[in-house]
């Protein structure tokens, strides 16, 4: 699957990365090379093979519904680029929605 410059531009948008035109060109070249390299996986017949997402197969790890200390308000905000002492602040999210 060849990756085109416009594919790369769409991915950059999806990944929230601003790329200049020059960077877009370089990135396209780099990704084409890497994707080509990775395509060697197609040489392998993996029909019937189960994917391995977790290397060691642990299951059923839970914690009890017992409250623990939260961060204080100042600790929660301490790393925020902008805040007003109560809330994190971002540029106005006008008319947009997240999802769900």
């Amino acid at each position, binding site marked *: 699957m060849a990756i085109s410059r416009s594919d*790369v531009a769409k991915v950059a948008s*999806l990944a929230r990365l601003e790329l200049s035109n020059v960077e877009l060109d370089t990135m396209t070249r780099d990704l084409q*090379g890497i994707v080509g390299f990775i395509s060697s996986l197609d040489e392998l017949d993996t029909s019937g093979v189960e994917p391995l997402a*977790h*290397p060691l197969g642990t299951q059923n790890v839970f914690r009890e519904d017992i409250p623990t200390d939260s961060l204080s308000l100042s600790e929660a905000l301490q*790393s925020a680029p902008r805040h007003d002492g109560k809330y*994190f602040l971002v540029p106005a999210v006008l008319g947009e929605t997240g999802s769900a």
Partner: protein
Amino acid sequence: MHPGDMSACEIAGAVARGDISAFECTQAALSRIDRLNGSINAFLHIDAEGAIASARSIDSRRARGESLGPLAGVPIAIKDVLCTRNVPTTCASKMLKDFRPPYDAFVVERLRTSDAVIVGKTNMDEFAMGGSNENSAFGPVRNPWDLSRAPGGSSGGSAACVAAGMSPIALGSDTGGSIRQPAGLCGITGLKPTYGRVSRRGLIAFASSLDQVGPMARSAADCALVLETIAGHDPGDSTSLKADVPPYSRLLEESLAGVRIGRVAAHFTEGLNPEVARAVDEAFAVFRAAGATIHDIEMPHARWGVPTYYLVAPCEASSNLARYDGVHFGHRTDTAQILASHAADRTQKNNIDSDQADSTLVEMYRKSRAEGFGSEVKRRIMLGTYALSAGYYDAYYLKALKVRRLIRQDYLNAFEKVDLIGGPVSATAAFPLGEKTGDPLSMYLVDLYTVTANLAGVGGISFPCGLSASGLPLGFQLQSPALAEPLLLRAADRFQRITDWHQRRPHLEGTLQQP
């Protein structure tokens, strides 16, 4: 002996006995760091004040007859990928340049309890992505054996720190070889534990199903001491194993008689530097002489290890790094500029085509991330995002996970015939800075011998087994089944009782701090 040349075991013993103070050891480390860091750039943050305070506290507690932790007085450096409360934790990235976490990583908590003295945070490839420590936003690390060469990565700072004797031990992290490979290139010993053996809580995530924290030191014995301290179940990490932690440092004595070590012929391709190949085979001979038997084995899917890794890791990384958006922490671009230019747009046109133009918020995200991340990080985020995007998941990520299972099966099959797998850790000795930075793929291939252990979740250790003709360290790697760290450490330790490669030191007297 100068405290800077003592091992962690020796310092721990001496401090416990009162032969030397924690303060002396810490001072020695700090002064060496001060003298050498300018040329090597191993440290991003040196916490002299904190270290001295810890040391003094240890000394007064000892004077009062209170009991001390097993690493009391031993200086340790921590890769800047691990969170240290209120101490800068940057992952060598502009994105986290000013980040001070409000908590310690699990392993850092353990080290503090053990009374180790944390001297500072070490340089690394940005967000642990790289094999040469040239991807740091704060300058590359230089290999103490040859300052024009790379120390390997991504734990290059920790490796260089230990190699240069700035501290006897350090913590690194290993996702595709980032402990073992720099250890190999810097002539030190580095261990990647079994996945889940050490808690990842507080380890800033690169690839969650591959990352592990591990010790780096000048000997397997020191690694054992550190591993004992940091390993163990953490209910705060769902992937943490419940298995008991053996007393690794007390399990080193047993002989290697009857231990079966596998040798993979396919490792010895034309890409492997002949000096490395020779040193590796000499190491096999040492093990044979020590009573082990060497067996030919095959790892049929090993050659797809790097492509598999370079799919799985970037996919997970693209996800783990989504949180760096300039909203709640980390770098945020100058939004005043964006707002001004949007206002200018509005005065020029009557209505902005809102489907075309990014909103201020989206632009904030895009610029913050573009400014905060270096080029390798961006490449991997792009690759991961692409591979996970609609329509590509099956062909890329899912396919990679299937190959991952085949790779793991190779290990399971191999370990029915042998107890350990031996071989090279790196195809070459340390390469010159700048040699591979122009070609991402060539840099990816430095992980050739190390990625499969992460994909399979098994343990691996690397240690020096020779010097090249030009005096550069050559490394050997042992890999073990899951939770077989006692055997790994014992085998490496036995090698280090028979040989003295691990005692060689780079010549640093001529090294001057940069003006």
